[in-house]
């Protein structure tokens, strides 16, 4: 009994400290007049090509807001502080960092990484801590498999529409409509593989071979021989850049030269052209930003493309990241507060056109961007479909593999 009061005192002290910490975390988000926004992105690891350009896009939005004096809230303007962590392309690390950002750094919201393997764990943490999370560069259907979501939002392309572009673009040239798919066993590879198989007949195409393999596969020569034997003239791949580089070398060695070759997730970065040189010529990919679309700040992002070494998906990632951040910042200003419920509600009311296009979220918290097909031509990527003003001619057969 005598010891009992000491335990009660200890418990009360711990409870007081916890309450104080919670209050501190809640208010730390705006300590010193700053709003903390966090992001866990892949600056290293297999998905590292996305990291620096995501950071560039987020920072551009933050710098823009802070240059204007900060975000306008009900009680005055407050500047934004961006906290960036490197999740090393590891989903477990991403989840852990999300908790750190929300709970220790006091982030009022997080901005996303790239690809479902990273964005889904980040979304799940947002759902657990009940604070908003806005992402892009994450195909929406694969992302929705991690839902349902109440606090997480994704503005990117719908795979159903994206997996039509390869067939639509290939129809610009003559092919025998025979398709070979190369997909890895990641979530997006599985989803895309099924959608391409589903979409092909609608456009008059036939999947004659579907090669599925784990990430890290190095030898594709058997699959290339299979595709060649079956007469495929359209190649569609969904794989990470290191694996795709090996595949492209082995296709050239096997003298397999399709009419069109799409490399999704692999040729969607400037490093593709640098790694393969002339071999990259003619690789096509689905793209979510082109200057020809004429959405806000097209000229500005074209200028960024030049600074990054030329037109490629690198600037598309910058535009996507910038858009996600602007959606979040506009929502904060509409809410007039960083209160989680108000902010989350404001994100849901988004209805505006951004560099990626018109953004309006559906009930399941996704919004779809327009999607285009581009092709690597002499070290840069150019729009080939749809045939907007300024689009280039689709080169076929694939020049780099000839």
């Amino acid at each position, binding site marked *: 009994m005598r010891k009992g009061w000491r335990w009660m005192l200890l418990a009360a002290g711990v409870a007081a400290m916890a309450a104080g910490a919670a209050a501190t975390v809640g208010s730390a988000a705006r300590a010193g007049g700053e709003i903390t926004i966090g992001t866990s992105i892949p600056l290293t690891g297999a998905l590292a090509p996305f990291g620096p350009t995501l950071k560039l896009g987020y920072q551009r939005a933050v710098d823009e807001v802070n240059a204007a004096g900060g975000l306008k809230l009900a009680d005055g303007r407050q500047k934004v502080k961006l906290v960036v962590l490197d999740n090393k392309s590891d989903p477990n690390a991403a989840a852990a960092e999300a908790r750190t950002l929300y709970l220790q750094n006091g982030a009022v919201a997080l901005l996303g990484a790239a690809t479902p393997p990273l964005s889904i764990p980040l979304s799940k943490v947002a759902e657990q801590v009940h604070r908003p999370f806005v992402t892009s560069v994450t195909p929406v259907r694969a992302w929705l498999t991690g839902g349902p979501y109440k606090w997480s939002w994704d503005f990117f392309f719908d795979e159903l529409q994206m997996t039509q572009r390869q067939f639509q673009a290939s129809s610009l040239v003559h092919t025998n409509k025979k398709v070979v798919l190369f997909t890895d066993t990641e979530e997006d590879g599985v989803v895309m593989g099924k959608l391409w198989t589903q979409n092909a007949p609608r456009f008059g195409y036939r999947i004659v071979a579907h090669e599925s393999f784990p990430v890290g596969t190095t030898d594709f020569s058997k699959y290339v021989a299979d595709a060649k034997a079956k007469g495929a003239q359209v190649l569609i791949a969904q794989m990470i850049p290191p694996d795709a580089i090996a595949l492209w*070398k082995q296709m050239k060695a096997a003298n397999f030269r399709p009419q069109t070759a799409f490399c999704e997730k692999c040729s969607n970065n400037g490093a593709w052209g640098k790694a393969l*040189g002339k071999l990259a010529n003619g690789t096509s990919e689905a793209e979510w930003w082109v200057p020809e679309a004429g959405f806000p700040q097209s000229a500005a992002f074209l200028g960024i493309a030049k600074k990054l070494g030329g037109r490629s998906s690198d600037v598309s990632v910058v535009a996507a990241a910038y858009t996600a951040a602007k959606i979040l910042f506009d929502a904060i200003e509409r809410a007039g507060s960083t209160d989680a419920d108000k902010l989350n509600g404001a994100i849901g009311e988004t209805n505006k056109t951004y560099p990626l296009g018109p953004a309006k979220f559906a009930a399941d918290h996704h919004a779809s961007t327009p999607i285009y097909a581009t092709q690597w031509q002499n070290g840069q990527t150019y729009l080939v479909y749809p045939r907007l003003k300024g689009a280039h001619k689709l080169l076929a057969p694939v020049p780099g593999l000839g």
Partner: protein
Amino acid sequence: MHELINGVLLGGLYAAVALGLTLVFGVMRLVNLAHGELLVGAAYVSYAIVSHTGLDPLLSLTLVVPAVALAAYPIQRLILNPLVTHGLEPPLVATFGLSIVAQTAFVLIFTSDAKSLNASYAVTGIDILGETVPQVYVISLGIGVALVALLHLGLTRLRFGKALRAAAEDAEAAATLGIDVKHVYAATFALAAALAAVGGVLIGVTFSLTPTTGTSWLLRGFTVIVLGGMGSVWGTLAGGVVVGIAEQLGATWFGPQYHDLVVFSLLVIVLVLRPQGLFGRKLT
């Protein structure tokens, strides 16, 4: 037939990758967890040389091999040698630390973007028994066999080789015979790095590389040497071929997502039936 041909050819590459690993273990009983980074580091050095000079990647080995060996010698002499006498764990942890440092350095210097060593023989095919295979696969087999043969000759015919085998057999006894064991250890590590340099450049030419590529190749290298017999030079070649064929057949019979399962199941079976590996543990 495709699987057998590809498996044998890739076995040569795997042997080139794993040879340095078995050498270091055979002499010093050291499991070098930084071996993957030696492979990748050499490939990056080659990349830097090729980018600036336009030299062919395999020709760049004339510069890469001595550079990597010279860098490796002091690492063994100054960092690992003092730890070797303290049991197995300290050098193991040290090499793990070195691998992390190396990976970070690769990111800082070369970025995380995937890179490739480009050469015409990497994108040209050759017909073997009706199967078209990349020319570089054939070159890799040739280089792998040549490295194994040269290493065997060096260990059995050269004075340094005899000193190395003596140190491997009994370091204390070798020291009493006047052999500078510390130098032998450092020279062995440098030689292992030189062999890894060849493997690394072949990886960069045949496939691609990123700062973390070394990890998967280290695992593959271990599988090769454990199957072939740790410390056995010819066993490494045999292990490489066995792993190459097992990967190819595993992917064909069970699906590509199971090829690792097939390889490691084979490894377990071999270890249960013959714990010393196919060719035992002997440094020749």
